[in-house]
């Protein structure tokens, strides 16, 4: 398997023609398989945009950046720029895990079902997959709350479900967008530790974006959005 992330000459703009505004211009960004990186930056620096581009939710500009260099975006060993939208959806379900600042759990489903639906999109519907989901919820301390809906869970518990959901398909890469922004200091450290531990156990790479200096201090590799951008 290649690098978890290999991005070259990536540009993302909003608007068209003379109205176009460059939001992100990324000459190069790499992350090895199974490695961790913390990307820091202030509000509006393009952190979430970067994650959405990596996840294939946003599409980068088609045209080459200045100088004629061809954009490259390989994630989990797949050239995602060459994938159709339907292929990207499938690839995303199988290759990526995503942890959001606001957890983004499906409120109509139980904790377990939130994991099962992520598995079903990745084509995993077996009993073994279900057992793995149950095991994972047990690992994050929610073994007795598997049938509880998110609305009845505490904020910390919801984020644990979100982490378990991101890991459940054993993805090549986990993207975490300010995963502890809604938690207090005590929960922040325990949730972050849990996330990193589970990511490591599943052999995934982790790309975490934050503006929190306390989190930044816990990572060996830290990249700044301002330095990454051209």
């Amino acid at each position: 398997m290649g690098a978890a992330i290999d991005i070259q000459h990536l540009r993302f703009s909003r608007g068209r023609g003379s109205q176009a505004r460059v939001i992100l211009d990324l000459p190069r960004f790499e992350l090895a398989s199974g490695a961790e990186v913390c990307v820091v930056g202030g509000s509006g620096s393009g952190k979430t945009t970067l994650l959405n581009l990596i996840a294939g939710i946003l599409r980068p500009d088609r045209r080459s950046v200045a100088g004629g260099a061809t954009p490259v975006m390989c994630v989990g060993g797949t050239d995602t720029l060459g994938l159709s939208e339907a292929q990207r959806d499938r690839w995303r379900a199988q290759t990526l895990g995503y942890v959001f600042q606001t957890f983004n759990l499906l409120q109509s489903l139980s904790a377990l079902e939130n994991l099962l639906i992520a598995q079903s999109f990745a084509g995993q519907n077996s009993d073994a997959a279900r057992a793995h989901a149950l095991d994972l919820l047990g690992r994050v301390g929610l073994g007795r709350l598997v049938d509880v809906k998110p609305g009845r869970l505490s904020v910390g518990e919801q984020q644990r479900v979100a982490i378990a959901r991101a890991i459940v398909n054993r993805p090549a890469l986990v993207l975490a967008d300010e995963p502890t922004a809604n938690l207090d200091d005590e929960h922040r450290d325990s949730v972050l530790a849990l996330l990193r531990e589970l990511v490591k156990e599943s052999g995934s790479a982790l790309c975490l974006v934050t503006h929190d200096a306390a989190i930044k201090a816990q990572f060996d590799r830290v990249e700044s959005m301002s330095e990454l951008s051209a």
Partner: protein
Amino acid sequence: MSLFTYVLRGLKQRPLSSALTALSVALGVMLVTSILAVQHEVERSYGRQSAGYSLVVGPAGSPLELVLNSVYHVGMSPGLLPFSALRELEGKEWERFVRHCVPYAVGDSYRGYRVVATTDAVFSEHFPQPAGAGKEKFSAGGPFEFDAKKLDYALDLLRRKIPLPPDEAGRQAVLGAEVAQQLGLGVGDDIEPTHGIEGDHRHSARHRWRIKGVLKSTGTPIDRVVFITLDSFYRIPEHSGGRMPVTGEPALSAILVFPRGGYAKAVVLTNLRKRGDLQVADVPTEIGRLMSIVGNVDKLFFIMAILVLFVALIGITVAIYNSMNERRREIAILRALGAGRRAVFAAIVGEAVVLAAVGGLIGFIAARLLLLGADRILREAAGLSLQRPEFRFQELLVLLVVVAAGAVAGMIPAWKAYRTDVAANLAPLS
């Protein structure tokens, strides 16, 4: 965990909205299927119940009223016709054309069931219901004893306005299958009919009729009739005055005429239509006329029911579409987890299909219950029985069309879901 489970969970998450939307569909389906079932039962029942009947001769008036009263035993008798009309139709002059005649004199009832006074002609093989002749028509007992001489004697006294003496032995009755079953009566039991079809006036003298037989079940109005002997009818003091107003001749309510064939029927029809003192009604023609009248009313009801259903289906679109604003984030989450646009589109259409299908099934069951509830009313008002309405492909088709229309109704909100901007809707709410 399938997308379908997610759809069901989503509907459960919004119980009030889901229930009201499904109920509105149920109302529409209930109306449409009820009307279709009643339409079908009306056509089936009226066709089946009048099978074998040909002509009804009665007093001048509405031929439809005459047929309804004589064949279906509903509504009021249009009046009286002279007994001599029966003798005439049974006479030499008509012998070539008329195979069989059955006289009816009505006006009494027994516990809600109509009493028809007649002769043993009603047990002939030429009388269509029940099939067969004599005892073959009976599930228990046999025909009442009919003595033509007794009848002639009674008629003679009636003409001379001499009070008829009572005849205990001659008071005999035969019950239709439903009368016997519903009232728990059998051969050897006695009944005491009352005056009037509503059965609210006792006769001045309390007389009892002995049940001699119970007819086989036919699924026709005959099942709801009590037959008594004609001469015993005339011997009831209230009925001895039942004579033609001017001539004073004994009267009948109607004569069922069974011609010897198509040509004979045409001859009888043509000749009797020239008569001013009576009328002849062609049963199939009158039923056809009734069906065309009922059919127009049916069409109106059906169009209204379709409109109700249409509004209910629009309700599905509105209910789901309105929920889309608060569900944009949910859609975005699904997409971020790897659900394709088509899967999201299918989930929303699936939601509409489930609402339409659940509503359709509830409506279908409600229609069946409604028909059962309306059975007694329709039976009394129109002689229709809806106790066992057939399940027909047409009703299944209604359900399928409703489910398909539900899918179409879901497409507008599904298109909105399809176009959801994932990145914008994943962002934290400010």
